[in-house]
């Protein structure tokens, strides 16, 4: 369970460019839930992911995984439990290293690293098995450099790496948006399969309302760093993209009306 409690993040505090990214946001994601997050540019969705991953300093509030408060933890320490897949398909893997070396790095994410060899026969066998599950024929290319793979293949491997070990939380930052539609569909399907198999608590940020409603079991819409919509279950099942649009516009309108009242 991820507990985000009253979290505020401001960029450039004390400068003319001061921008509040998250404003007193609270959000609980129960174990095993697949949450999708949408919102316009600057709504705070990437900042939300980054604050869970430990990449931005919180101005206020706390973040906990289960009972463990991880607010002060550096990103590398959180990575033991919090796995990430980036928007840029080239960012999640090391192109200069081989496929098996990339997987070995991810394999040791949740373990203490020592001076033992990073790769051995047993690991290679298990890597071959999980690569075969992608159905891309990569199981025969363990020694190939990552840079030889296409963007879609690399994103699929990134996903595989993120779901290795004892990861509890998976953070997906628009991880299909840089792919062509067919590859995006494949990566999304792989995401569904891996998340279901590992029962991972997942937060997926997306630009696409369609995707936000189709994938996962709960959808949150952020607006100006605050929670604007939070739907799950029956309500969400009945919702379609136009409904979500209306909801969004009504929110915008309501806010403008409020501001007008204040003047």
């Amino acid at each position: 369970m991820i507990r985000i409690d009253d979290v505020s993040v401001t960029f450039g505090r004390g400068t003319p460019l001061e921008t509040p990214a998250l404003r007193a946001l609270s959000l609980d994601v129960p174990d095993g839930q697949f949450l999708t997050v949408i919102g316009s540019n600057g709504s705070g969705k990437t900042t939300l992911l980054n604050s869970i991953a430990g990449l931005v300093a919180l101005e206020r509030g706390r973040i906990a995984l289960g009972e463990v408060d991880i607010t002060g933890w550096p990103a590398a320490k959180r990575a033991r439990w919090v796995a990430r897949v980036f928007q840029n398909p080239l960012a999640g893997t090391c192109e200069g290293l081989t496929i098996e070396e990339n997987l070995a790095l991810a394999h040791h994410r949740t373990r203490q690293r020592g001076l033992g060899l990073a790769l051995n026969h047993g690991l290679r066998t298990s890597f071959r098995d999980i690569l075969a599950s992608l159905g891309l024929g990569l199981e025969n290319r363990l020694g190939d450099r990552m840079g030889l793979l296409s963007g879609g293949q690399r994103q699929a491997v990134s996903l595989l790496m993120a779901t290795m070990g004892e990861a509890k939380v998976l953070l997906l930052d628009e991880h299909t948006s840089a792919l062509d539609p067919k590859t995006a569909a494949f990566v999304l399907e792989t995401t569904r399969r891996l998340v279901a198999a590992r029962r991972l608590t997942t937060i997926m940020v997306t630009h696409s309302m369609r995707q936000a409603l189709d994938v996962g079991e709960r959808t949150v819409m952020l607006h100006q760093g605050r929670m604007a919509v939070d739907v799950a279950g029956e309500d969400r099942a009945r919702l379609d993209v136009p409904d979500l649009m209306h909801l969004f516009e009504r929110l915008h309108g309501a806010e403008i009306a409020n501001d007008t009242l204040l003047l």
Partner: protein
Amino acid sequence: MTVFAFLGAVEIGLVFGLVALGAYLSFRVLNFPDLTVEGSFPLGAAVAATAIVTGLHPISATLLSALAGAAAGALTAWMNVRLRILHLLAGILTAIALYSVNLRIMGRPNMPLLGEDTVFTPLRGLFGLPNYVLVPLALAVIVVVVKLLLDRFLYSQVGLAMRAVGANPQMAEANAVHTGRLTILGLMMSNALVALGGGLFAQTQGAADISMGIGVIIVGLASVIVGEALLPTRALFLATLAAVTGSIVYRIAIAVALNVDAIGLTASDVNIVTAVLVAVALVAPSSRRPFSVLRRS
């Protein structure tokens, strides 16, 4: 060129092979252009020479020089990682500070080892071979052992994490790699190798000198570049071999150039030749893996 001159070049090439391995680790593996080398090489020489003159066993003195180098590397990395000082500047700051430190250690600009035992002394007369053959042989053994240990480390779990830090720090961090810690560890290892080279160099030359460090980093880089030209590879095992080979070939090439009177080069021209070589190698369109960290985009 005489056999004596040739073996002399090989000997210096082997000592600088350690520097080349250090430069490979910082520049190539960690993608960290570390200029500490200019100070840690003479630091190793100063520590080894002073320790030997003080009466320490030559082997302990040589190991001590490596430890001193590790400390220098830790300082540079710490300034970069924790104080957020630009990597190039952090290295220069350590190197300039080490100039004073080295003078303090030796108490004077030059520390001769005349009549002192060195790590090479026990070899004297072995197999009935002259010293100018035995010293390069002993150095070859040392360099090969160090190279194999370095390879083994880079293939380890921590070593793989270190390679990831240099190649894609964001991805490394997302895989629970503490990038700062590994940068510090990497620069400690790199400068330990360089200072070990310095300590051995002082013992082969019979003296430590405050000006020994000038241009050492460029020589290390030149060795790595020459090695990559001779043996273009991405396999680690071969890449470290290439760095050492590059260092030896580079020294032989310099020795040949200085020996051919028609070219008209003297020993004092070595630095400009090296600088031109490195500059050309950096911009040569054929270089398959340019040192991206050293060129503006």
